[in-house]
């Protein structure tokens, strides 16, 4: 028989399941008197938001930056991840002396509604039934995520955020913040994102969801009760998605056609090529930390995102008269959220009279560039926040002048 390897099952499944209800984070709980009003018409209550903070909020509460995470990110921006033990996903950008300087700013990042790291989502326990929500969880949208974040910001006693920053799905949340709460956002840094999800991106998401749902262990979404986990389907979904985060040039540079621990093909379906081995690793490490149903819900939220649709199809209307300072960033080799999408956003912001800067960063690292060590991007982020901080009257220590 031909040698076959597939994605191994998750080793930390129990740790992850625990995080869904009892996160290693700060938690804000909202009772039935404070429901989250969802776009689908359902009031979600009670619910909770898991979040992390870094740095100190100044006396004037004017130095708070909300970081919005991407599809498979979470609130653990700059601390060791409680499930994987790996460093935070944006330690390149967030920390003392970094562009999002924790000595100067008060950084907040919350797990999105629908996520699986402690904010209420399909992996959480449904208080009405005492079992995991699963597919009983209502379908959520990007505006729902932002509405929940606004409730958290209220709870923290912050009126205006100094900045809202995020890439990819995080960038969508940034733009949604600016459209929904223009007066509460002093500056905004949407990175590698769009005001709407493209047909191609919806197609990729559908591929991922179908992979999850085709796994017999998915059990119509009831895998927790039935003691299984669709790790193969979720792994395949992640592998396919991961390809879209890179670029042909980056894959070629990193792997080429090099073999994995061998010199000759094995004439099997084993991972002969380094790139195969790498993708399998991406798949298997992802299923350890992520809930399959959560992946379905969050990809769906991105698919539904279209700011213009909420403004009679006129994108500029969403930002008309805004006083927020924008810095839009894209990457040359990003084909998931190409520069053309960012330019469309910039055109709409300009048409709305917004104060907007736009920079396209040259890199061959694809969509993932926003998570990687790209100095030119850091320079822009640093310069933009510095000058916005100057306008906001922040000193180097994050105090008001």
């Amino acid at each position: 028989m031909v040698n076959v390897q597939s994605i191994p099952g998750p080793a930390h499944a129990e740790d992850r399941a625990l995080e869904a209800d009892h996160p290693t984070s700060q938690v804000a709980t909202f009772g039935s008197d404070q429901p989250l009003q969802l776009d689908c018409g359902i009031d979600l209550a009670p619910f909770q938001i898991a979040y992390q903070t870094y740095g100190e909020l100044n006396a004037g509460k004017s130095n708070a930056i909300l970081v919005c995470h991407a599809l498979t990110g979470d609130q653990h921006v700059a601390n060791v991840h409680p499930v994987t033990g790996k460093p935070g996903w944006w330690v390149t950008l967030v920390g003392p002396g970094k562009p999002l300087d924790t000595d100067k700013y008060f950084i907040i990042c919350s797990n999105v509604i629908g996520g699986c790291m402690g904010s209420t989502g399909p992996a959480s326990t449904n208080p009405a039934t005492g079992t995991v929500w699963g597919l009983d969880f209502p379908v959520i949208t990007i505006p729902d995520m932002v509405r929940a974040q606004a409730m958290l910001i209220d709870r923290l006693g912050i009126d205006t955020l100094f900045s809202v920053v995020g890439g990819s799905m995080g960038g969508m949340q940034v733009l949604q913040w600016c459209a929904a709460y223009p007066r509460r956002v002093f500056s905004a840094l949407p990175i590698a994102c769009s005001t709407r999800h493209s047909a191609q991106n919806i197609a990729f998401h559908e591929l991922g969801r179908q992979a999850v749902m085709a796994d017999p262990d998915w059990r119509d979404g009831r895998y927790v009760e039935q003691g299984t986990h669709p790790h193969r389907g979720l792994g395949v979904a992640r592998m396919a998605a991961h390809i879209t985060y890179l670029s042909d040039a980056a894959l070629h540079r990193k792997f080429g056609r090099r073999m994995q621990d061998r010199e000759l093909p094995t004439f099997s379906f084993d991972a002969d090529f380094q790139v195969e081995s790498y993708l399998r690793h991406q798949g298997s490490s992802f299923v350890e930390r992520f809930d399959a149903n959560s992946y379905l819900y969050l990809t769906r939220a991105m698919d539904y995102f279209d700011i213009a649709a909420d403004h009679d199809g006129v994108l500029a209307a969403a930002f008309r008269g805004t006083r927020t300072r924008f810095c839009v960033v894209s990457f040359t080799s990003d084909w998931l959220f190409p520069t053309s999408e960012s330019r469309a956003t910039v055109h709409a912001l300009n048409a709305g009279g917004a104060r907007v800067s736009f920079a396209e960063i040259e890199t061959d690292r694809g969509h993932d560039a926003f998570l990687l060590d790209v100095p030119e991007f850091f320079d822009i982020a640093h310069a933009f926040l510095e000058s916005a901080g100057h306008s906001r009257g922040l000193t180097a220590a994050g105090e008001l002048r």
Partner: protein
Amino acid sequence: MSVPQPTLPLDDSAPSRKRYRQKGRYRGDHLLLAEMIEPNSKVLDVGCGDGDLLQLLETRGVDGRGIELSREGVNHCVAKGLAVVQGDADTDLVNYPDDAFDYVILSQTLQATRQPKAVLENLLRIGSRAIVSFPNFGHWKMRLQLLVGGHMPRTENLPATWYDTPNIHFCTIKDFVQLCDEINVKMERSVALDLYGRPLRFNAPWWFWNMFGEQGVFLLSRVEKTK
């Protein structure tokens, strides 16, 4: 026969401005441009380079925005807190709505655009006024180099050779005035500057400016259509 070569400036410290300009040293027209603009107005600077002019304008209460082709230029501008987007005058002006600005500035950039006429029309669609400055190819030194030297002129301000210059649409002051007439643009003010960016004699005739002006600066407005 030996051809006298123009001396080239050695200042290579300025970052490359690619299509828009080659040297950051000479910008004698900034103060004049700033003086043409009413305080507290809304201004778009097309081809804003490192943002020096926008910075000058912001000190005068102007709400300024910029477009710049080069990434280095954009980065410098963002670092200065200016609102500048990376873009191209030829392709991106069409995306700006009508009457979005009080003034649109095109400083030393017209000659580097692919479609100067379309760009000029867009300037006056986006802004109620436009300020355009450009190097005058009718200057006597240019004429002399072509006439006597028999080669494409190169000057201190325009040192590039014909094969690597970003300036693909040179014109003279006279040419520009003709274009303005053709597309029904009103010239509210016009100034010719010398090598050092100083205005020439105010009441000089056109031919004098076209011969001795290193660059022309024009404040333009739309001619309202009569029915």
